[in-house]
């Protein structure tokens, strides 16, 4: 072997990506029919990882469209590490700039909820704050209490489009009936994994503002004001009950 190992790898990687190699020994390898097995396996591994991590997007756009967009994305942002469960964190941003996706303006945000699901699924374990723990807080202390979002909690308000409904209808339950009655309005979403299963609930603008403030370390009094600021008629006790029930908080400080 006259060629160094690193030169071999460099040329092999180039041939995998470009289909040709400057190095003549590796170019001869790339001309063998077996070379395609490596190229196909690498591509399949990346595409399968994206399909697994973005199932709602894959369902919305169909297999062929997804494969085309995935191929472009993989060319720009190949995996950097072998944990493919975490691959494609920037796929939502990519879709926002991918010209063929322009006619599907909700696609990047639906992708973001798929990403939230992955992040919640593999986040650190944490016992959620129980509703009973809050019930024990004296009323006059409640306003000064700080609730920190659960380690797995991910949330966002989408002002212009019903992203949560679009996502949920295309995720596991694939309930397309609900799409017929879809109201085109803003929706927020919260995903959290209090135990083994990722839970997803819809949140209003005020609900999102509330948990934004909690995430920034605000006391409940000021988190409540933040919620009222964007949604003057919000039912704060119903919101708290809903957040506690889903396990949205991981820590409580007084």
């Amino acid at each position, binding site marked *: 072997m006259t060629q160094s190992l690193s030169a071999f*790898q460099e040329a092999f990687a180039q041939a995998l990506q470009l289909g040709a190699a400057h190095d003549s020994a590796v170019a001869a390898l790339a001309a*063998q*029919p*077996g070379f395609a097995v*490596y190229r196909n396996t690498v591509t399949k591994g990346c595409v399968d990882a994206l399909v697994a991590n973005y199932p709602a997007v894959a369902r919305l756009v169909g297999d062929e469209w997804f494969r085309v967009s995935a191929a472009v994305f993989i060319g720009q942002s190949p*995996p*950097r590490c*072998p944990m493919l469960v975490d691959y494609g964190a920037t796929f939502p941003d990519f879709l926002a700039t991918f010209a063929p996706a322009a006619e599907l303006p909700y696609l990047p945000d639906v992708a973001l909820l798929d990403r939230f699901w992955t992040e919640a699924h593999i*986040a650190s374990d944490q016992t959620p704050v129980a509703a009973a723990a809050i019930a024990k807080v004296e009323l006059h202390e409640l306003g000064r209490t700080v609730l920190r979002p659960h380690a797995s909690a991910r949330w966002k308000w989408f002002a212009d489009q019903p992203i949560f409904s679009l996502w949920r209808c295309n995720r596991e339950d694939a309930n397309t009936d609900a799409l017929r009655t879809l109201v085109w309005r803003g929706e927020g979403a919260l995903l959290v994994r209090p135990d*083994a299963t990722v839970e997803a609930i819809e949140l209003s603008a005020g609900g999102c503002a509330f948990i934004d403030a909690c995430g920034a370390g605000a006391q409940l009094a000021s988190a409540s004001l933040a919620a009222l600021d964007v949604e003057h008629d919000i039912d704060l006790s119903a919101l708290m009950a809903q957040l506690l029930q889903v396990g949205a908080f991981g820590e409580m400080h007084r």
Partner: protein
Amino acid sequence: MPVVGSALDPRVADHDAPTAGLGLRPPHYADAADAAAPGLWFEVHSENYMVDGGPRLAWLETIRTRHPLSLHGVGLSLGGDADPDSDHLARLNRLVQRFEPFVVSEHLAWSSWNGVYRPDLLPVPRSPEALQRAVANIQRTQDTIKRTLLVENPSHYLEIAGHEYGEIEFMTELCRRTGCRLLLDVNNVYVSANNLGFDANAYIDAFPSRYVAELHLAGHSADPNLGDALLIDSHDAPVCAAVWQLYARLVARIGPRPTLIERDDDLPAFDILLAERNRADHLMQAPANLG
């Protein structure tokens, strides 16, 4: 010759000695936890469990309390001309410490290069330089996880001109220089022999018994364009008759070794895999009974 611990971790003493095992995939978690065959063990891809928390780790914890576990890595790039990624080694070490697998294995291949990971096991030209590099990478890994590593023979699809060692010679040298042991994948031998035109029986007969600590059995598929002229190690089918014959021939010579049925794609029901696993278990005890 630095030998790091034993290839088989003594801490598996709380279970039956591992005989035949199954690759573990998420749809089979509950079945795997409940399965009770004597000697049954499970193997997972280490990379799928390099996460902070969540159900994967919780299931692995449950299954680990009931069965011996093997950690099989696909991402260390032992055959590449670079040190193993220190973050990746640290993650592997955390898994080894937490789950106390009875074996830890990797491949004679590379996948990461210049900061890009390619999800495949790419080929290594067997030169003195590559040998020296693989030795250093195996030593580094063993020093980090404080365990003997098992190294698996690759599947081949290309005639690479200029190999300076035979594959068995190369892998034997790895064992001599690092104290590592070998994971012999019988299907990989069959696929490679078919694709490169060598005699699978001769390879199996020449493989050094003393270094073999684990065996793999898997299914393969024919290339969609070239058919049987090019077989692909796809892990998406049952073990074929010819691979069972190679396996029986091998265990008749070297005796029983922990043997895994590897299935990663087109996953059938758990019972179907368990039946395949039981066949390996029976053959391991009585290789003459291949029927």
